[in-house]
């Protein structure tokens, strides 16, 4: 997992500004926070969802419910993909029915993770809407999925990797482009 870093494309302050803007966009588009829930895709999407929740609270003064999904059991590549760690638990401490779900992930790439996450959310109930918020959109979509809120568009080659690092898990906040090992 030690890929060679080619460039740092977002630093901690850039990430924070992007999340602040996304928080405002979520509020503007949904006209407030009623019926909104945030759901992060584990593991880094979970951290970003919590940060968005904190930002929304500081803007509106109210908590928005925040949950996290582990999509391992919903992946479409379980035949060929070896996860490098044991799956984690999905934690949705609220009912998603009749809610506007803001799905949060670090990087939008093929769209397959978002597809798996949408399938998993639908198994829990019938939300009125699911919107997708990502810190980085790097292109190369394989499914008809688009993000409603994007922190930064980073056109990349499929030979590269775009890695989002968050201080809760990776010591510091940054987004880097790295040489793929494959």
């Amino acid at each position, binding site marked *: 997992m030690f890929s060679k870093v080619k460039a740092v494309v977002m630093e901690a302050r850039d990430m924070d500004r992007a999340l602040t803007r996304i928080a405002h966009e979520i509020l503007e588009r949904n006209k407030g926070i009623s019926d909104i829930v945030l759901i992060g895709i584990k593991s880094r999407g979970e951290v970003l969802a919590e940060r968005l929740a904190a930002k929304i609270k500081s803007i509106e003064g109210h908590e928005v419910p925040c949950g996290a999904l582990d999509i*391992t*059991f919903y992946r479409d590549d379980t035949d*060929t993909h070896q996860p*490098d760690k*044991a799956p984690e*638990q999905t934690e949705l401490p609220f009912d998603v029915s009749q809610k506007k779900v803001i799905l949060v992930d670090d990087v939008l790439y093929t769209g397959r993770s978002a597809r798996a996450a949408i399938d998993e959310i639908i198994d829990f109930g019938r939300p009125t809407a699911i919107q997708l918020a990502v810190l980085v959109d790097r292109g190369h979509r394989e499914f008809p999925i688009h993000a409603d809120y994007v922190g930064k568009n980073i056109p990349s080659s499929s030979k590269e990797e775009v890695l989002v690092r968050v201080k809760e898990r990776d010591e510091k906040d940054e987004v880097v482009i790295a040489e793929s090992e494959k």
Partner: protein
Amino acid sequence: MSLKSKDLLTIEELSSTEIQLILDTASSFKEVSTRSVKKVPALRGRTVVLFFQEPSTRTRVSFELAAKRLSADILNVQTASSSLVKGETLIDTLKTLESMTIDALVVRHKCSGVPLMLANMTNATVINAGDGFHEHPTQGLLDMLTIKEQKGKIEGQTVTIIGDITHSRVARSNIHGLQKMGAKVRVCAPPTLLPAGIEKMGVEVYHDLDKALKDTDVVYVLRLQLERQKKNLFPTIREYSQLYSVTSERLKHAKKDAIVMHPGPMNRGVEISSGVADGPASVIDEQVTNGVAVRMAVLYLLKGEKGENNG
């Protein structure tokens, strides 16, 4: 991360890392069973055959539920209604099943070693659901998950297994697994119910229940297989019960926060009193709940790789 073998035949052949992976994965699957839609698509399109050649309720139901919650398709093949009663050999039955392209075979058989024999003859995943007096790996795993949840960790716990060790595949799986995970294991039984050379497995041997229970964190009561009495392994059930039954009174010798486990089915009043089985120290119902989660984890981790590992 995955398991090395395509099969799960024994705990003896698992490494502590593999046991840890199964337990961690099982913890995640526990959450699935609390949802309103208790199903994930992880094994969609796979066929799991439950091949039980010995009576079983909880293990079979637990495996069936586990496979269903993973969206697998399930076939039940039981002795009484299968061609085995017409004289078909086990191997021919396996070949027939294999020709119908099954993915996993869950086997329970009264003879030790049958799952291994079948595993060597098929490309399908074979999971041992109890073979003779040999091993019952998923039971051992669900017991370890229960201990881990109740006590925080397995390492350093003193686990005392009481009862018919000789004829217990549950005891063997637990002894192997618990020791790999760093627990101290004691066994307690009359000498006639202890296999020769049990000390070589690294366990402490006791014949006196009160002494065995001293400083015990986990009291593991085995089912007394009542049919053994016919072989004169102990004089009467009454005498066995007086010496080895775990009652509220005897339990006082264990640690204050000790938990009591039993693999079921229980003979209430024989190896365990109802007071203990239904008492505050009992985690027997937790064991059953964890059984489904552990079997989901095992089925999921052994589902096999069709393509190249591209990590």
